[in-house]
């Protein structure tokens, strides 16, 4: 999924990669594309993880993992960092999801469980501000429940914010008519994906509404 997503990242883009699988995307972006990574804790021009033993406790990413800074990087405070996000200056963010609705609503910060400690971080800011929002997620939960649904049952992160979803089964756009399959994973049929999706899918090449 991360590999497939990486192919859609254009050279010259300013990109924020969410914690977890989205972080893996950077390693797969074709080498001839210069992409500039933003981490919302205050660094533009983030580089790969440091060599073992070369890390610094105060050079970290939003996932609190040690990173490096590329030539041409800049450090800044949180108000400036989120001005980049909220002000629409980032081209793309890639996030994980608990659920995505056919209207592009995203739920990715809370299952709403009673005893959970609510924690949102910068997710709501990212989806509200970044020009294009990609989601990377397994197509279903471990229990086989659909994560692409008619409408989200988990608490929302943002309304109508997702542009494209990369799952283990397909690449799916949010179109005016809902989930629009763009590409099926090798060996996967449309029907197989539809069975595992909680809302109607439009087939590849179908009317995008």
């Amino acid at each position, binding site marked *: 999924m991360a590999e497939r997503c990486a192919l859609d990242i254009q050279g*010259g883009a300013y990109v924020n990669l969410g914690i977890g699988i989205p972080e893996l995307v950077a390693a797969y972006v074709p080498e001839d594309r210069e992409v500039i990574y933003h981490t919302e804790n205050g660094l533009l*021009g983030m580089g790969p993880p440091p060599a073992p033993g070369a890390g610094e406790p105060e050079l970290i990413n939003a996932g609190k993992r040690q990173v490096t800074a590329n030539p041409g990087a*800049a450090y800044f405070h949180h108000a400036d960092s989120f*001005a*980049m996000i909220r002000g629409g200056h980032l081209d793309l963010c890639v996030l994980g999801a608990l659920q995505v609705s056919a209207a592009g609503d995203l739920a990715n910060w809370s299952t709403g469980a009673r005893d959970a400690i609510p924690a949102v971080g910068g997710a709501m800011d990212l989806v509200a501000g970044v020009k294009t929002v990609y989601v990377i997620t397994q197509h279903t939960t471990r229990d086989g429940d659909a994560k692409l649904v008619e409408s989200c049952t988990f608490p929302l992160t943002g309304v109508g914010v997702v542009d494209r979803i990369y799952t283990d089964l397909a690449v799916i756009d949010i179109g005016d008519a809902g989930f629009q399959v763009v590409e099926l994973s090798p060996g996967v049929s449309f029907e197989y994906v539809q069975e595992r999706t909680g809302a109607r899918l439009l087939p590849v090449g179908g009317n995008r509404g």
Partner: protein
Amino acid sequence: MINKEVATVADAVADVFDAATVMIGGFGEAGSPIELIHALVDQGATNLTVINNNTGSGEVGLAALIKAGRVSKMICSYPRSQNSMVFPELYRSGRTALELVPQGTLAERIRAGGAGIPAFYTPTAVGTPLEEGKERRSFDGRDYLLEHGLTADFALIKGRKADRHGNVVYNKTARNFSPLMAMAASTTIVQAQSIVQPGELDPEVVVTPGIFVQRVVSVADPAHESELVAAGASYP
């Protein structure tokens, strides 16, 4: 490879269109991107809305753009100068409109525009003539006015050094509005005295990160407005 450098100031402003909103950095002559402004005079775009703290000096730089009749509206805090009658004459004749904004409110509106904040409340100008037409609202017993973010199609900025990623540092009090305008414009154009390699600017001291800048152009030896004015220069 990301390379935002363009060859000439003419190239840098080539796509400025009629009726565009253009933010121009500078407070007085400090930070005024005079070569970019002159390129814009040559380029010919007209009916512009210009956002700058002032309205220029003499008949060069911003004053030259105004004198050429290209500016239909100024948004500024202090449209007077001891040595320029260019704006006052056009204003009195009704050919150039003026939106007068307190200086700090102007700065904050530009920052808000760049930061995705559509509106905010400020105590400045409550009870004054500049309150007219604005919503007043009380928070914790004090009155404030609602002010809206400002954005622009273009920003013209003068930096000291820049790199091909668009990172910029400034010179002393020439910084003023420029970092804010760089955030608020769709296309931010920076003239810098030197273009350095990425990595030459310490990431700790970059003032405007490259994400806010679309074009950089080298102007190695920029003119000083005060010297041009003292010499009686006019542009073109």
